[in-house]
């Protein structure tokens, strides 16, 4: 039997997940109300389009609804798991979009979107940066570290694609990713001190 909404609201995320696994709509609804905003925001940040972000968020939550029992509390919080599901869906969306056959009457903008990820060029890096998307935690990083983290995490590019895009050795790209994460982590630790 499904729990009542009031009871579900009093439960921690980790307590809601077994109920979601047993197909309890009220538990799932509470989960969405807690994290739907963050999930949609992340999807929008990655796909850059409201309709697509809505589709990605809905698909991600439905996959959670149908596979809720797969959540493993030992590997992190429900929220981080949920957001990783959303990120993966959003990156898949970008990749499938990039994999479409180009139109015959394409212009530069649509052609850029339709090229496979590996063929997208530095224009993509520039677009993401100049669109003011490098912000928040990574906004404080040195530009070269922020750029590789942004392209990897929010753009879904592999380190080799980024290396090709920015014409850098792969080792340099991986090094900048690590330095960037170290700096963010260091700032978090200082904030807690």
């Amino acid at each position: 039997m499904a729990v009542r909404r009031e009871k579900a609201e009093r439960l921690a995320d980790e307590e809601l997940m077994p109920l979601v696994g047993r197909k309890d709509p009220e538990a799932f609804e509470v989960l969405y109300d807690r994290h739907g905003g963050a999930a949609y925001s992340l999807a929008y940040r990655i796909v850059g389009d409201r309709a697509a972000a809505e589709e990605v968020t809905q698909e991600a939550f439905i996959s959670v609804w149908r596979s809720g029992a797969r959540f493993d509390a030992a590997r992190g919080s429900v929220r981080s798991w949920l957001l990783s599901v959303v990120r993966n869906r959003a990156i898949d969306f970008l990749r499938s979009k990039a994999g479409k056959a180009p139109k015959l009457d394409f212009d530069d903008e649509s052609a850029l979107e339709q090229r496979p990820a590996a063929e997208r060029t530095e224009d993509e890096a520039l677009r993401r940066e100049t669109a003011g998307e490098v912000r928040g935690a990574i906004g404080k990083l040195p530009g070269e570290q922020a750029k590789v983290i942004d392209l990897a995490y929010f753009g879904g590019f592999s380190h080799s694609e980024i290396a090709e895009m920015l014409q850098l050795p792969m080792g340099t790209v991986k090094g900048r990713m690590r330095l960037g994460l170290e700096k963010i982590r260091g700032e978090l630790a200082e904030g807690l001190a």
Partner: protein
Amino acid sequence: MNGNDHIRWSEDLAAYMLGALEQREAGEFERHLESCERCQGEMRWFDPAVQTLSESVERQEPPPGLRAALMAEVRADVRPAPAKSRRWRLRPAMAFAAAALLVAVVVGYEIGTSDSGSKGGSTVLSTQEHGIRVKMVREGDGGTLHLANLHQLPPDKVLEAWVRREGTVEAVPALLVPDRKGQAETTIADMSGVDTVMVTEEPQGGSETPTGEAIVTMTVPL
């Protein structure tokens, strides 16, 4: 595990956590990770930094229809599948009861037009019965049914909305669950041909046909 081996993989750790390793590389790294406590420790240390990336994005308000659409799909999953079709004809006795309810319970409604700023504006129908405030907002082909001043339901009950279209009663997929303020809403995707909207109290999970007493009945001008 020697130190050099760890250093080699350590270079890949940040890329792995950012999802930037190729699939084959990620698989190799995961195999190494299983036996490398230093990498496991570093991953735990880096994890909050990666989570911060997700949380640092500019907050966007999800479209209002997303929640309703999502919950409609979820509730459709738990609703028992109808034997043949989601549409059915009311049995004579049920039809009579529904008709009687329509005549007896409809208190009236006000019709107003508001400019919602969207294409074509929206039409608002409102009424009140049994102390429950009812508002039906029609936009385009669909609509949203809002209920307020609802009593809390027993744990084994839900509210279910129904529409009557050309004499056939259909269940609205998303069940209504009052929140703490006694408010609930559900989306009706297709209002074309609907002349009546009704809400009944039903067992948890909803019913295929109305079984409970109608607490709300609203006629809708075609």
